[in-house]
């Protein structure tokens, strides 16, 4: 087979989701954001929700998420995405509304908005990218930074006396009556991506069924922030992040 035969539609086994724009992504090589964006696009497309989905972008590396998915978006102030999503959904109950937030956005500056949106059981999906570091601002400590982990604002390693402990915010959210699904996934292998997509779809289904708030946490890599190669960061994530943030459902009602 030559190349023109290979790219015939009947020979294609994989295609870029239609909802993904052709714009080159600003994410670093090895970053989890691109894969998660793709999964969201696939789920929206497969559920036929393109015309009724509104995404809420955060402040952080995913601040430009609105450049990549061909849907309506609002870009929130740092940490406030769940407040925006609350109003968007309540004023438009037939729409699909999701937020996309990093660990600093969701678990530091936006902790109040996150907890209260979940506690009210807003019928939204919260997509939470946990890579234990602030990527956009250049590698500072996040609330989820591991003990001993070095960042530019804890250059000698996270120390409990100075910085407190890694915040397992999803465990906290799972305790709230308003949440119906709290699950922790990752996207570093093909089977992991498949599983993560299944849970993401369930979250979107919950939202449209009015079951309450669904949170899908993605334990993620930040090769640049961690100062590793993409491959090494995947390995580091499995060895260091997953013991602190074990994968699986924390709540699935």
């Amino acid at each position, binding site marked *: 087979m030559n190349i023109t035969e290979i790219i015939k539609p009947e020979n294609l086994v994989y295609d870029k989701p239609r909802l993904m724009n052709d714009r080159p992504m600003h994410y670093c090589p090895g970053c989890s954001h691109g894969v998660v964006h793709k999964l969201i696009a696939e789920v929206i497309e497969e559920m036929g929700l*393109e*015309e*009724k*989905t*509104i995404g*809420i*972008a955060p402040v952080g590396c995913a*601040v430009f998420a*609105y450049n990549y*998915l*061909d*849907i*309506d*978006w*609002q*870009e*929130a*102030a740092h940490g*406030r995405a769940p*407040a*925006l*999503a*609350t*109003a*968007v959904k*309540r*004023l*438009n109950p037939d*729409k699909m509304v999701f937020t996309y937030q990093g660990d600093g956005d969701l678990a530091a500056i936006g902790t*109040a*908005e996150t*907890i*209260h949106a979940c506690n009210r059981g807003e019928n939204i999906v919260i997509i939470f990218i946990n890579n234990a570091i602030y990527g956009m601002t250049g590698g500072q400590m996040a609330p989820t930074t591991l003990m001993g982990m070095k960042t530019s604002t804890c250059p000698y390693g996270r120390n409990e006396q100075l910085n407190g402990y890694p915040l397992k915010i999803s465990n906290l959210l799972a305790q709230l009556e308003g949440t119906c699904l709290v699950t922790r996934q990752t996207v570093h292998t093909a089977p992991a991506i498949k599983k993560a997509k299944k849970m993401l779809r369930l979250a979107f289904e919950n939202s449209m069924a009015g079951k309450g708030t669904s949170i899908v946490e993605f334990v993620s890599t930040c090769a640049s922030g961690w100062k590793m190669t993409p491959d090494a960061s995947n390995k580091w994530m499995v060895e260091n992040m997953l013991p602190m943030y074990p994968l699986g459902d924390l709540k699935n009602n």
Partner: protein
Amino acid sequence: MKGNEVIAHAAIRYGADGYFGYPITPQSEIMETLMDEKPWETTGMIVLQAESEVAAINMVYGGAGCGKRVMTSSSSPGISLKQEGISYMAGAELPALIVNIMRGGPGLGTIQPSQADYFQTVKGGGHGDYKMITLAPASVQEMADHVALGFDLAFKYNNPVMILSDGVIGQMMEKVVLPEFRPRKTEEEIRKEQPWATLGKPKNRKPNIITSLELDSNIMEQNNNRFQTKYKQIAENEVLFEEMNCEDAEYLIVAFGSAARISQKAVELARQQGIKVGLFRPITLWPFPEKELAAYVGKLKGILVVELNAGQMIEDVKLAVECKIPTEHFGRLGGIVPTPDEVLTALKAKLEAKRS
């Protein structure tokens, strides 16, 4: 009805889509009245008590981004918390109504009335070069009227609008004629009238993106220039003010809101004593009635600016008349509301005594 209650009724009757707030004295009656009226059962208006003022203003951002008629209310300390959201809405060009029933500050201050948030409101309380249309009601009737006016202006210019009132007008009871009920806008109407609204992307248009972010400085400068052009247009077209007994006046009291109500009585007392005083009341604090005040240059012996603060609007008055009219200030602070007699005494002491 109380001024605060009237805000709630006027919002429901205007066809507002949503209210998001957090309790704070002296304005809690606004959300209490809305909750009591249960508009979600009649007009479909959503009312939600948020976890903070920060969350409430961001809910307003979210709702406004959908092209909905949404509002929030608070009092001074809570309005400080909303400044981030107001700046973002100005940057994203979102229409919304924000009500500030001012109390005395700084800090937690007092729950008593004040007008000390004038600077914060008209000079841009949040970051960046932006302006917020500011309405200053001086009666319970105007509290009702300014809800509709505020929403109309917000949607005319895609800009946040603030009703800047205080505890006097908010708590005061007066007779009021409420506006007629208007239906809320349907999704189809919003899609047509606010084509930028994020209500889900049909196949035939590009995604709508509500954002204040632009990292390309050249485009960001263009955005800012566009805002400035809009502000200039607002300044040219939307100035509102009231003049009372000004035709033959030798002195002018300039005051807004509750201070104007007190000054109105002071003008009456002064006239009884043969002092020719008029009252000039800015209704829009931004845009400020600059030209209208400048027209008094050469015609007055002096201006007394009366405010429930240490002297804020007086700066705009002096700028308007280019300091060509002697301008003095009288204010009480910390929640004290002066009597008309005090205003008259101040007028005599600060202006009349010096001149005659």
